[in-house]
């Protein structure tokens, strides 16, 4: 038995070129399948957990999905801003309990900067009505103070008291606001939502760093030092979006109609739950199709293994007879072929998982930036164990077939194969 397994490894090594190609196919296929499953799982997680306790999200009129993406998931950007007067008009509507303005557009080393008010930390809810908590420090109270999401602090190794500078736009190498550094005054507890990857500052700070800017570029020859910004009116004239909480949830449709018909400018209000469902329905279809397709790719990879092994079996008929003469039983020859197939499958899947790890490392930031999906670094989830078992089981079936053929062949051939 041990002799046979050792031979299985050696014989596989002898045919490493053909088997290597098959192995690569299996590796790529399983990496694809795991990636799709992981993105699917994490997307669902990201979308369902990202926001709760907010009755309406309001922005310039566009698509509801687009509004959700930039306002909640920090993905993409708004085509238009909304005027501060519009915000005030709706914030003071009698049905409104609270309203929190949001300004987006700057970044710090690839992390989105969110300009808002301290109320954000009080009213924002995620997951199951959970409030934001501080792991260190407290909310900002003044200009040039910032509160970091947990992932920002962890990845950039920042602590309360550190100073950071912001960049205009989302590109890491965009034009800078280096002349006006911010002090970290608080770090939020982890939430598993886009909040973790946001840098929070107050609205006045956003106005302050753009005082000497016009149309997205610094004004040449004009530089207003940080000490002097308070002499200016820092009330923002425009914001990107705002979140609304109602006194009575029953008013939600009435207020939504009111906002959508607002005369001052074209606005749109969406209910996060409804918009997320809509988003999910679009994605759910794609997601199912992708999953089915990548499962098919894995099956094709394993079919390649089967084909390679069956083709090699004819050349190896002689080898099987030699092993038989040396005392190998038909059962052991069955084992030889099956072990070889399983070895290739297992190595293939292992390489695939390696590829997945590397891929996650490189693509997670892209997924976050463009789709708001947060890929979690974690060990295998239960459904992934299931997937792994399914791949290995299919590989086993694919390997049993050449094994069975070898068994039949050795019984028919005895010691002298007739070709």
């Amino acid at each position: 038995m041990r002799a046979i397994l050792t031979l299985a490894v050696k014989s596989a090594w002898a045919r490493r070129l053909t088997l290597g190609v098959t192995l690569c196919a299996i590796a790529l296929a399983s990496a694809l399948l795991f990636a799709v499953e992981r993105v699917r799982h994490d997307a669902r997680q990201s979308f369902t957990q990202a926001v709760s306790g907010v009755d309406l999200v309001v922005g310039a009129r566009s698509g509801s999905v687009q509004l959700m993406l930039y306002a909640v998931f920090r993905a993409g950007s708004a085509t238009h801003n909304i005027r501060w007067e519009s915000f005030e008009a709706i914030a003071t509507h009698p049905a409104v309990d609270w309203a929190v303005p949001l300004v987006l557009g700057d970044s710090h080393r690839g992390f989105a900067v969110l300009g808002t008010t301290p109320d954000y930390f009080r009213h924002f809810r995620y997951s199951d009505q959970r409030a934001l908590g501080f792991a260190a420090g407290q909310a900002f109270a003044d200009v040039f103070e910032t509160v970091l999401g947990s992932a920002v602090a962890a990845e950039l190794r920042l602590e309360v008291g550190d100073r950071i500078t912001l960049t205009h736009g989302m590109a890491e190498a965009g034009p800078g606001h280096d002349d006006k550094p911010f002090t970290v005054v608080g770090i939020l507890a982890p939430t598993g939502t886009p909040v973790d990857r946001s840098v929070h500052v107050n609205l006045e700070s956003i106005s302050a760093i753009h005082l000497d800017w016009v149309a997205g570029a610094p004004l040449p020859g004009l530089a207003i030092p940080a000490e002097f910004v308070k002499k200016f009116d820092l009330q923002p004239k425009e914001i990107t979006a705002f979140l609304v909480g109602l006194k009575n949830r029953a008013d939600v449709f009435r207020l939504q109609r009111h906002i959508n018909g607002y005369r001052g400018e074209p606005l749109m209000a969406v209910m996060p739950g409804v918009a997320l469902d809509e988003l999910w329905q679009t994605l759910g279809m794609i997601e199912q199709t992708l999953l089915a397709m990548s499962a098919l790719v894995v099956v094709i990879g394993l079919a390649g293994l089967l084909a390679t092994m069956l083709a090699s079996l004819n050349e190896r008929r002689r080898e099987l007879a030699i092993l038989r003469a040396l005392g190998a039983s038909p059962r052991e020859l069955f084992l030889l072929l099956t072990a070889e197939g399983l070895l290739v499958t297992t190595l293939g899947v292992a390489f695939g998982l390696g590829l997945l790890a590397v891929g996650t490392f490189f693509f997670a930031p892209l997924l976050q930036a463009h789709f708001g999906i947060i890929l979690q670094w974690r060990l295998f989830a239960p459904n992934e164990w299931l997937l792994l078992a399914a791949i290995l089981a299919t590989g086993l079936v694919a390997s049993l077939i050449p094994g069975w053929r070898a068994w039949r062949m050795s019984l028919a051939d005895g010691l002298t194969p007739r070709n």
Partner: protein
Amino acid sequence: MFLDGRMTALSIVNLVYRWPRQQAVCLDIPRFDIAAGEHVFLHGPSGGGKSTLLGLLGGVAVPERGSIELLGSDITRLSGHSRDRFRADHIGFIFQQFNLLPWLSALDNVLLPCTFSARRLTRAGTAREAATRLLTHLDLAADAWHKPAGELSVGQQQRVAAARALIGRPEILIADEPTSALDAPRQQIFIDLLLAEAKAEGAALLFVSHDERLAAHFDRKIALCDINRAGTIEP
């Protein structure tokens, strides 16, 4: 059990064999014995059933009737697994061609029986030494030992195959037309080397060939048709 006062290596009584799904009986051998250490040359035309007989002796096929006693045990009464073990422990095979696993070195091919049979590993002593000694005796140059077997010439391959059959001193050697792939001058050289080693190890040898001219140095020469009644009945 005994033949001319010597213990028998092989003793066949009333053996009948028919290939599956075939009408005609292929072998019908009332009696055939080989003494321990005896070197027998068995000849007959192609398709006469020589290889079939060797398969029965190796225990990869089971006769319809009759007994095959090897070294005192009737292998027709053993289970398939025990027959495989018996073959690994007591029989060394050499075939016409392609005897070796082409992706193993010559030396590793010779050592294979020791990985399949603990008995042969023990009897070989230091297996590597035994292998190199056999290869030396069989005239295989040392620079060929570590080459992949697939790269050796046919003549070299047959000598490696002989060394593999001999390692661990099995009591029975079975050679099925081992010289057919060699050119005429090398045939006799190979046979002499094989006979000398078989003698040195004290193994019985059943050498099968369709070519009667090679029988010169054997203890005994037999035609299959003399012991096989099935062949004579055919029209």
